[in-house]
């Protein structure tokens, strides 16, 4: 399933990439792939801006303005003037690994 086209803030600086593969290991949407010992952005619109890749790229090759893609959280943030914040306990009962 894909969300809106061309909205995400994901930025990739290939010149810094060493091809270590961490981003591929952590991305839950297969946004990155490896080619000729370098990562590349294979499917940008699938990015959900979770920030796992940027958090774990040791070489600073990835930048993304990460945050929760959750309407209630963003409305909360709009009202309080702070960053989007959700009361996750009320939210997602995700049965992901753990």
């Amino acid at each position, binding site marked *: *399933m*894909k*969300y*809106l*086209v061309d*909205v*995400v*803030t994901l930025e990739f600086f290939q010149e810094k990439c060493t091809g270590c593969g*961490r981003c*591929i*290991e*952590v*991305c*839950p*949407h*297969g946004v990155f792939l490896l080619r000729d010992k370098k990562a590349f952005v294979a499917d940008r619109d*699938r*990015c*959900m*801006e*979770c*920030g*796992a890749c940027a*958090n*774990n790229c*040791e070489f600073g090759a990835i930048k993304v*303005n*990460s*945050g*929760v*893609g*959750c*309407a*209630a*959280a*963003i*409305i909360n943030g*709009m009202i309080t003037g702070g960053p*989007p914040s*959700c009361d*996750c*306990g*009320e*939210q*997602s*009962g*995700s*049965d*992901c*690994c*753990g």
Partner: protein
Amino acid sequence: MGIEKLSFLPRAVGVKKAAGQPAVSKVSSEWTWKDRLGEIKCRISSFRMRYTVRPGLYAVGEPSVESDVFVTANYKLSFDILRRELKGLNVWIIVLDTKGINVWCAAGKGTFGTNELISRINETNLHNVVTHRRIIIPQLGAVGVNARIVQQRTGFRVYFGPVYAKDIPAYIRAGHVKTPEMRLARFNMLDRLVLTPMEINPAMKKFPLFALIALVLFGLQPSGILFKDAWEGGMPFLIFGLMAVFTGAFITPLLLPFIPFRSFAVKGWLTGMIAVFVLMKGIELWYYKSLLPLAAAYIFFPLASSYIALQFTGSTTFTSMSGVKKELKIGVPVYLTATALSLLILIIYKLSQWRVI
């Protein structure tokens, strides 16, 4: 909230004693009926808020100094799903203190994070429990865990395991290698179905207020509130309201990929519109002796369904913050304007009934 007091000490089936170590509780990979009941309560109510496990080190099977170490959150359902999938394996589990929140959400908040992991590794004395230096974190925890810092500070190399616990046995058999499928967060119809109670509950909490406003509006007469008018005029609106909750919180999430357009707001509007259209067939025009209430219904309820559907972005595994922000930027002004417009139309309708205009 007294999380400590309410937290479960997982039913120990024995103790595991490693040489020179304090005893570690051994847990079963089987679920009891209580575990099942707990899962159901978590899925449908706010019971999830207090369903926690005490953080620390646990043993599944008969782990040795060579066995793998898995990390999870102290939301009991996360812990239960993990231990269920570890059936037949001999492994260690480290439970982080995530304040009772699942891995994915806690990683986003940072409670399932680098610092908590490092201090839990030290506190459980993991260096002496195992001789290897591998630690397996659920992939979705990568948002909060910085593998490089963990390795620098503890010597443990972080492996980001599969997204779903059920892939763990295959992952271990393959020698800690993930297939591309194991990396992807899925979101199938069943995943979506189990999330709908959490969409319907909050929407229904607002329903009484909406019902009150609708009934008062229709019942209002220059002489006071007429119960009969309130009921007769308001009834179709209450049904429309329930319908908007149904299409926004249930139909749209369930049929998500099959409804055209990518925007959740548009999807919700579309299902709401179809439902209003179908229900209108049941209300013949003479019911209100005016087109105005029907026009208000056509404006308001599809958008109510749209707004409710937009809330589902909080439960999905693929919506980005930038995308949701864009939807809201366009959506919120539309919702507010449309609500004001439908109220205005109803007021004009009332005034014309009272022959004021």
